[in-house]
């Protein structure tokens, strides 16, 4: 039943991940309990009586497509729904610089829905935005992102696009990502990829046996790509990195590839499966290639699908021999250090694996959500690292503050926005993505390990910051069960 959604060609919308993958955003307990519940299919969807703000799927949908060079982003929404664009523009400009390009801004237009249009609809403004996008930027694609407001008032974006498509040469592509429609912001990736699949990707005229689609989110930096390219080159394969910093043409050609893989299975999940079902491009997206074992597995899966098993074993052997002495050096300093990791679900498995390679103890993991994308790899992590505190939370720093206070880790590894709260508690922090550090592959272990050494050698920023930070929560909160506000099925 579940499989049919990947073939929902010509439909603009994709079922949200909580429906499609039984994704949960609320769990608190231990890793082994979670694995146990998962195995027995007893994990129930819960909610929170108290919640803090989080990401919506529109943000992630825009994050997926914003850096495509020959495209324009239109948000059919009130003006605030494009607010994240200056932030995404930082990633875009930084990414272009790291690729040796002269940075240019993301191109975005808000239909700026005002009160009257929020009630009666904003067809005229959407048409105008599309025509202006064409006139000003002459793009090959115009992505129209929906919003809470356009969704609630029932704006028929497909129909509006149909009426205006004849007047522009760019392909106008709807991306459905109404913020309220999914509790799992990763659903936004699917809305974006669905737009690309329906409108940009054509039946392949030929197969290219050396081309591998590597589907990476914008948080995967150029240095990671270089590591991936290096490993694939050893197998005589070429990476087609999509969708970031590429063109609609390169995305269109993804159907010609021999294989699809990714750095982030959570990001690529829907797209990789759809490419297979629609265009018979096989895929592997078992794990994020971060950490030695995960990278081995990642390569072996590619080798298996492309008949390069022997070559892969040769690469693994040589790479491990090369990096192991350096890893031993790092281990001497880092072994036994207690680490807490908070990340999107794929990185929430990848980063602990890398830290375990460095001999560190995993005392806790927060994953932004949890579903079948990581069932297997998370169970493997639990086997490898033993039992640890596990929180499934779509950010929710109040739970994190409580847990960190109890676990007292030596290091905190987290995402944008939430790491600051760990720093204010005095824990030395490093980001689980950083465009100037390698995470991927064999070099990633050394690169990120060296980053952690700096943290070990000088944790003074967090220490001093904590001495001067006023706690948000009442003191009593720290003595409570961190999962006190979880509530049963609704």
């Amino acid at each position, binding site marked *: 039943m579940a499989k049919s959604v990947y073939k929902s060609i010509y439909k603009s919308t994709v079922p949200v991940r909580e429906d499609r993958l039984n994704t949960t955003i609320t769990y608190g307990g231990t890793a082994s309990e979670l694995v146990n519940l998962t195995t027995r299919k007893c994990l129930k969807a819960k909610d929170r009586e108290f919640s803090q703000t989080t990401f919506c799927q529109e943000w992630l949908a825009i994050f997926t497509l914003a850096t495509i060079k020959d495209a324009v982003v239109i948000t059919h929404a009130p003006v605030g729904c494009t607010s994240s664009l*200056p932030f995404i523009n930082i990633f875009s400009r930084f990414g272009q610089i790291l690729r040796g390009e002269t940075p240019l801004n993301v191109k*975005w237009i808000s239909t700026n829905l005002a009160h009257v249009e929020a009630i009666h609809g904003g067809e005229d403004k959407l048409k105008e935005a599309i025509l202006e996008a064409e006139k000003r930027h002459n793009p090959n694609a115009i992505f129209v992102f929906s919003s809470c407001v356009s969704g*609630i008032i029932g704006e028929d974006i497909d129909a509006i696009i149909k009426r205006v498509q004849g007047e522009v040469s760019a392909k106008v592509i709807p991306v459905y990502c109404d913020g*309220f429609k999914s*509790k799992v912001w990763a659903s936004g990736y699917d809305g974006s990829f669905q737009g690309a699949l329906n409108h940009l990707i054509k039946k392949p005229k030929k197969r290219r046996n050396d081309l591998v689609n590597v589907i990476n989110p914008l948080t995967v930096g150029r240095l990671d790509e270089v590591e991936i390219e290096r490993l694939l080159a050893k197998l005589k394969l070429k990476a087609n990195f999509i969708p970031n910093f590429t063109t609609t043409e390169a995305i269109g050609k993804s159907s010609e590839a021999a294989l699809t893989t990714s750095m982030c299975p959570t990001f690529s999940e829907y797209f990789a499966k759809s490419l297979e079902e629609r265009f018979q491009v096989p895929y592997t997206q078992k794990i994020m290639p971060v950490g030695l074992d995960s990278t081995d597995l990642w390569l072996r899966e590619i080798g298996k699908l492309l008949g390069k098993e022997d070559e892969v074993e040769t690469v693994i052997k040589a790479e491990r021999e090369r990096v192991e002495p350096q890893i031993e050096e790092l281990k001497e300093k880092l072994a036994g250090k207690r680490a807490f990791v908070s990340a999107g679900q794929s990185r929430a498995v990848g980063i602990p694996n890398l830290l375990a390679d460095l001999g560190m103890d995993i005392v806790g993991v927060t994953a932004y959500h949890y579903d079948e994308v990581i069932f297997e790899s998370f169970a493997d992590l639990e086997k490898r690292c033993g039992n640890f505190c596990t929180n499934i939370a779509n950010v929710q720093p109040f739970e994190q503050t409580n847990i960190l206070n109890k676990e007292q880790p030596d290091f905190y590894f987290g995402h944008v*926005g939430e790491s*600051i709260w760990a720093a204010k508690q005095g824990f030395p922090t490093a980001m689980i993505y950083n465009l100037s550090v390698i995470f991927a592959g064999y070099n990633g272990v050394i690169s990120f390990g060296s980053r952690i050494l700096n943290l070990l050698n000088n944790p003074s920023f967090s220490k001093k910051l904590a001495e001067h930070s006023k706690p948000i929560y*009442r003191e009593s909160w720290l003595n409570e069960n961190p999962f006190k506000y979880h509530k049963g099925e609704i």
Partner: protein
Amino acid sequence: MSNIIEAPRFSCALGGALSTITAIEGFVPIIHAGPGCGVQLFYGQSFAGGFRGSGWIGGVSVPSTNTYEKEVVFGGEKRLKEQIEKTIELIEGNRYVVLTGCTAELIGDDVSSILREFKDKSVIYAQTAGFKGSSYIGYEILLDTFIDQLVEEKPGKENLVNIFGIVPSQDVFWEGNLAEIERILNGIGLEVNTLFNGKKIEDLSSAALNIVLSPWTGIKAAEKLKDRFGTPYIINPLPIGVTETNLFLEKVGAALKIDVSDFTAKEEEKTYKSIDKVADFVVDFDVQLRFATITDSNYAIALNKFLVNEFGWIPSLALITDDVPEDYKDSIKKELNFKNTLSPEVLFESDSGRIWDAVEKEAPNFIFGSSLDKDLAAKLGATKLSISFPFTDRIVIDRGYAGYRGAISLIEDALSEFVAPL
């Protein structure tokens, strides 16, 4: 009708209200809206303004109902009530302020009826749906809420003044600007309530004078306070430099019958001692540039007045980006009408595409704008200083451009950009 906007230079009403609430000590925001509003507005209103951080309870820590499909279909009132109760249980605040977003307002949640259950006005609410307008409008809605729900008649204090018109984060230099304004008003013997300096919102009715530091934002609040408590007000857009700051203090002095001449004379002397230090550079390198401003109306007035009337630069275009309500456009144009044909051409435009076209035609040497204008400046070979929201190519902590000291910072920063390629 509002227009479509390419690369907007403000966020929505909820954005302005949220950045304002989180700037007030002890005030706890509770967003009643979709899941992404708080995060989107943190990155899009605070962080996008010189990388302003979360503070005490901003960023991803803001309590939010995160309304999903269920609430949209069945109403979000139950969820809101639960969220308020638990917020109070977890977080100690002076006030809790519910900010409603687009979702809550479109589905018609009745927030006021829920709030009746909470005593002592500990919880108030403002209807700040994003579709109501820009960040500036959100700030105004919030002020209106404060005056309606928190402010009552109190004994007057003859040396107390309130400051309105500066929207936190939307004015990236708000904190530095207000610090300088407070310093100089203290200097003439006044106590100042900026809303953000630890003074109480409840005391707004005690002031002897309300000062609106903007050509339009905050005027409604001043009018309302005049209606309710008889407090007079003056409108004086942000002053930068000796001439404008002297005039500002004289205006305040006239309204409150204070002689400010000793203070202004001293500040004037100090400021020119500083300007003297860079005068050689300005003279030796002939730094008399033709500039354009891409800023809100407040900075357009402030920068053009200072740069033209005091620093001797040549204005070209003043692009005014803050979606100014029609009623105020004439008074803004008047403020920018200088003697000796030294007036900039004034255009009211929020759309970056149109802004870039207009500036490209003028090809100024120097652009006071946002980091959005980087590509344009590169194309024109112009120097650019990021001064208006949003920008992500400068870090701002407590820098300000207002008053006497602000002028020194402005000269330093502008000229530093000019010599940066060297």
